[in-house]
């Protein structure tokens, strides 16, 4: 898998490259700013990019704008955005149209190598990766007559994992249950929340997110 990294901190950029290299990725570009990244995305055929949301020169929204542009112009390239803050507003902006091949993680997650590499791989494969913190914030959001209260604790766990973009297999591995059990939970959750069951795993991320957001 070919990836590019855009991160202005040399320390992190090199660390990330090493980590991904060790995990079997081919890191074809290490960029210090958004313009460089866009250039590289145009010239190489990439599976995914990993973008720091705050990039030079202003350290405001250069990273996010680059991510959105890549998503618009190169739908086949997965985009994983890294940030030191979790902003639900930003997640919504990033996933406005689809959750295909997109991720938004807290930078801290890099420390958990397995999880992180798994997320990069999912995004590169056209799946999604949403930081658990975003999901838990959305889940704990106060809402009148909360339909989430109808879920069993286990169903809630499955919903949480589902919302982060985990595949059914991923959920099964994580919770140490069978794939069949996961599927049962998923259809039960959709039933209880009144959501139409959708095909792809990323489509259902979006459906769950929209539900949680409203």
């Amino acid at each position, binding site marked *: 898998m070919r990836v590019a990294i855009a991160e*202005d*901190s040399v*320390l*992190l950029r090199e*660390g*990330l490259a*090493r*980590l991904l290299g*060790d995990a079997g990725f081919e890191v074809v570009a290490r960029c210090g700013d958004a313009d460089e990244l866009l250039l590289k995305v145009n010239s190489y055929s990439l599976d995914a990019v990993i973008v720091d*949301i*705050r990039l030079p020169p202003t*350290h*405001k*929204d250069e990273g*996010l704008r680059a991510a959105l542009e890549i998503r618009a112009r190169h739908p086949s390239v997965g985009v994983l955005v890294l940030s*030191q*803050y*979790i*902003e*639900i*507003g*930003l997640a*919504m*902006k990033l996933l406005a149209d689809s959750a295909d091949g997109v991720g938004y993680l807290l*930078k*801290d997650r*890099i*420390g*958990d*190598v397995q999880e992180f590499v798994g997320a990069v791989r999912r995004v590169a494969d056209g799946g999604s990766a949403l930081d658990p913190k975003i999901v838990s*914030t*959305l889940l704990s*959001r*106060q*809402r*009148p007559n909360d339909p989430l209260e109808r879920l069993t604790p286990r169903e809630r766990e499955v919903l949480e994992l589902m919302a982060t973009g985990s595949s059914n297999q991923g959920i099964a591995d994580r919770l140490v249950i069978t794939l069949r059990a996961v599927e049962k939970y998923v259809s039960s959750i959709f039933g209880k929340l009144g959501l139409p069951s959708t095909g792809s795993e990323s489509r259902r991320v979006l459906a769950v997110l929209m539900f949680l*957001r409203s």
Partner: protein
Amino acid sequence: MAASAVPWSADSRAPKPLLLWAIALAGVAAAACSIALAYTSDHLAEPGLRAALIDWITLPYILAGLVAWSRRPASRFGPLMIAAGFAMFLSSLQWANTDLPYTIGLAFDLLPAALFLHVFLAFPTGRLERRVAAIAVAYFSAVGLQLVKMLLGGVGPDNLLAVVTEPTAANTVQDVQLIALSAIALAGIALLATRRRGSAMPRRRAVALMVDSSALGLVMIAALLLAAAFEVTMFETIRRITFAVIGLAPVAFLVGLLDARLARSAIGDLLVELRTDPPPADLRDAFSRALRDPSLTLAYWLPRFESWVDLDGRPVELPAADSGRTATIIDREGAHPAALLHDGSLDDEPELLDAVSAAAEIALENGRLQAELRARLEELRGSRERVIEAGQNERQRLERILHDGAQQRLIALSLELSLLEERLGADTDARTRLDHARHEIALSLEELRDVARGLHPAVVTGHGLAVALESLAAQAALPVRLTVGLEGRVDDRLEVAAYYVVCESLVNIAKHAHATSATIELERTNGQLVVEVVDDGVGGADTEHGSGLRGLADRVEALGGRLRIWTPRDGGTRVRAEIPCA
């Protein structure tokens, strides 16, 4: 009292009250004497009417003269009027039956005419300037030629001065005398008419009245003298009318003074008017009304240019002494910021001038204080804005340092530990300790994040209010409905201020409101960024204590906006910030 009128001053030549009273008494005695002479005269027809006409002039002239003299001791106008009054009395001595007073009376028969000319032409300053020659001729004609005429025996047998009896020569002298005097009177009328027409400024009513009655007096004097010269049959009628008219002038003068007394009641109105802090043009009109002087000009002193200017900024000259105009300078602590340029006749009313200039002083001082206050407020607003902005910039800088420094390093360290862990193999003890270290790093990062975030909400400056508010609403402790009616971005400072308004309001709601839901509305309307947070809680929020709301108000006000809070008991709380937004 700081006001001072240039030509008017408390003069050392001021007449002593005793002298004034003595003159007044003498005047009354003279009037009584005239009446006595008239009634005892053996050669006077209609004594009552003649005496009344004489006293109609004597008494008002003396009275007006006394008033004028006491008001303006420096002016000769007062003594001149008193002299005219007594001259009138002197001429009545010719009614006496004995020869000496009769002769004296005859000698001064025409003196009043010359004096009236003098009075009318010298008004209002009491000085004649270029007309001195004319008045000298008038006095010569009235007294000098009269004596010549008497020496020639021209006025009857009982004249003690008669040396010869030359009626023809005496008649010629009399004709010269009368025609000269009437010519001067006519010239005087022309002069008054020109002055009245030529004057660019409207005159004060009191002055105009006096000038008009003077002109009328001159007309009648000329008519009377010509009637005498050409021996017109209606001479007696003309004389009565003339006397009646001449007596009007001092009455007009006194009426003018009374008018000025009434004018002082206008000071009250003036003060009321000044309280509303009128613009300069209205200020001038107010002074003009109070002084009853339509010609009034308000002049300001420009220290930098060392000159006086009017309201339109055009330079003005302070009037010279004796120009008929006077400047009353409003003085304040040695500085003279303004002057009232007004009709010279107002110098007769120093109390009125003092009162108006005191009011002017108050108004100007008031205006200056208000301007100063506005300047200070502006300065204060500016410094508050700078203080808040400086604080904001500093916090933003610190957040950057944490974000790009410590946080990145900790993340890199955590990554390093993870890579290390991969190579550890089966050493479970080492793994556990590494895990523990990573956990510690994660906690540190969490804490740092909170600190950095508290320092500066980077999401606001980075991604705008809409994104930032969405996160706030999602993380709120109660259901929040967010409505954003704002396209694009506005100034950073405004966004940060609005963000803090929402943030602080949500914190307050969570802590105190016991609310079940809240709404956040953000919109841009009428050049304002409006953000409103409403909850359905218990209301009655404490807006004074706890620095939260106060700090918000500071932030909003520093940007020229305002923060309003409605928090009725049991009625929920509404916090609304309106910030001007270009």
